[in-house]
């Protein structure tokens, strides 16, 4: 019994490491696609999107990481990403915005002024 407990303790510790890595990855992601681990160029299947979201939610949800400040921040970001990408209208607007930003940053690079103003993530609340 003791051994089993030890094994499961190691298992939990390993899970915790994976969770923290995932939280950091999500918090460092540049856009909603990256947060969910998707490629912008591929067409997104709704079932696949939901599955990826759930998999990641299970890892970073605050309930699974009691007392971790990274958890709630990364979970919010993940949720926001899913909310936008799972809604066709929000996704369309968001894609549009991403394109504009890219265009701007290319333009700004040539003119030399900083960017990233008033970007909305298209989340409710």
């Amino acid at each position, binding site marked *: 019994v003791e051994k089993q407990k030890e094994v499961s303790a190691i298992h939990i510790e390993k899970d915790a490491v994976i969770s923290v890595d995932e939280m950091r990855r999500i918090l460092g992601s540049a856009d909603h696609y990256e947060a969910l681990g998707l490629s912008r160029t591929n067409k997104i299947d709704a079932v696949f999107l939901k599955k990826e979201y759930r998999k990641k939610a299970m890892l970073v949800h*605050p*309930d*699974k990481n009691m007392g971790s400040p990274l958890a*709630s921040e990364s979970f*919010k970001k993940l*949720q926001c990403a899913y909310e936008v990408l799972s809604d066709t209208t929000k996704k369309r607007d968001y894609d549009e915005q991403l394109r504009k930003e890219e265009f701007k940053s290319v333009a700004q690079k040539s003119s030399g002024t900083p960017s990233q103003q008033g970007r909305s993530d298209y*989340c*409710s*609340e």
Partner: protein
Amino acid sequence: MASTAAQIHLIRPSFAPNPTRTTSKSGFFGTSVSFTTPKSSLPRLRKCSNRRNHSLRVAAEKVVGIDLGTTNSAVGAMEGGKPVIVTNAEGQRTTPSVVAYTKNGDRLVGQIAKRQAVVNPENTFFSVKRFIGRKMIEVDEEAKQVSYNVVRDDNGNVKLDCPAIGKQFAAEEISAQVLRKLVDDASKFLNEKVSKAVVTVPAYFNDSQRTATKDAGRIAGLEVLRIINEPTAASLAYGFERKNNETILVFDLGGGTFDVSVLEVGDGVFEVLSTSGDTHLGGDDFDKRIVDWLALSFKNDEGIDLLKDKQALQRLTETAEKAKMELSTLTQANISLPFITATADGPKHIETTLTRAKFEELCSDLLDRLKTPVQNSLRDAKLSISDIDEVILVGGSTRIPAVQGVVKSLTGKDPNVTVNPDEVVALGAAVQAGVLAGDVSDIVLLDVTPLSIGLETLGGVMTKIIPRNTTLPTSKSEGSGKKQDITITGASTLPSDEVERMVSEAERFSKEDKEKRDAIDTKNQADSVVYQTEKQLKELGEKVPAEVKEKVEAKLEELKKAITEGVTQVIKDTMAALNQEVMQLGQSLYNQPGATPGAGGADGPSEASNKGPEGDVIDADFTDSK
């Protein structure tokens, strides 16, 4: 020799609790130890065993799930990887959410409080959940329906008047006492300290009501790790062992509230899609219809309004609830209320029959009110009824055939009956407790409550509407600044210093309670020791050496005096001293050369002195537990 055998036999029982708890070591002590050693060695041994248990317990402290219901409450806990119901001290799986104060100031909680409601209606507090976290102006109707006095305090908040002890309680304090009992009983059942819990509330509880429920936990000395919605909890219990993707509708008709939630379950993720309900609809309302019907026909026949008589009203309510329950399985119920009141002509009785058809007619508008929330929840989830895979019934009132009929006609399918409607919420709360404690790894809940993860509740800030179809938490500042939806209505919850005062008061009461219980136990024990010793002395008669007998009698008189004086510690000390003498008495009999006590004599000491050492063990238990 028979007496020797009896003596050894009488020592064994005093050790009996030990071998079961510790290793064979105590068995060794038990048989070889002399008469006086048990007292000193026992507590030490027990302490050792305690430490052993602690080192074995790797997992963190147990977190329980509590369904704090309007009429009944239940507790669940994860045991062996599964949620189970924790039975209370009376051996029941649910506990009435009732608190009462008797005329001499004793506090009763649960079944014993419910049982005496008829004779003590003004001091018996039930359905308190209807008042928790509410302003007086919000609960005018409810206040009229209870047998105790609901009053308004200086801040417009609800207070419950208790004439028996001349005190006004906040609803939080009454709920705290229910919680305290639930947790105390759970600690006993689980054999470990319980100080953390997940507590459920109706999905339609607002922020004030949630905060007040949390405060009740705090007053009870309980850390409420999370408040979750009742229908959500039900879905956790239902979906705990199912891993397939399903969309489920939870139809929760409890004692006082009606909740509907639509959830999507898959890959271990429980996501609430929508929730809807009616805060003023529950089993109590169905009872009320029967009460009103009985009272009206009595008024027509006798010209007396029974609703004005608190005791009669309480009896009507209890009978109505029983009739309602009977009508779930029978097509008609007999109602018999002898001596319900009296006039100049003599006593009056109620003797009648209620058919299921009549009951359904009386409640037809209540049944109609079940429809809208179901339709709203589907609309909000952007689903049609054909998208629902399962309909789960929760709450005792879903046993009413007409309610099941409404569900069936609304959803076009037979509701799932695999879960127990009285227990499923507590079981689900236990699952969430397991998730938070790290015992359950493959489940996560995404709920839509305003009090969920990441959002702190501010005292007095009340969200007007739960944002539909929005899975919280999301930061309020993101997006289009929807924080305008929040309205400030002034706190209907307790100020924090008042909560602190109640916490310390509850702690003091619980200490007093323990002392009172200890006093009662000690006195009963002492009475029994006196009786047994007197019996033994009488039976042994001349066989006892005079000087030993004198000593025993002296101590016996001291104990009797101590009992009349009633100081617990003095009783304990004198009782211990008497037990010493009784042991000496036993030993003197054993040492008597050629002592051959008769058959009657052999029975006597074994039974009588049996009681002595047993008292000692309990004594050791008290000191140990402090």
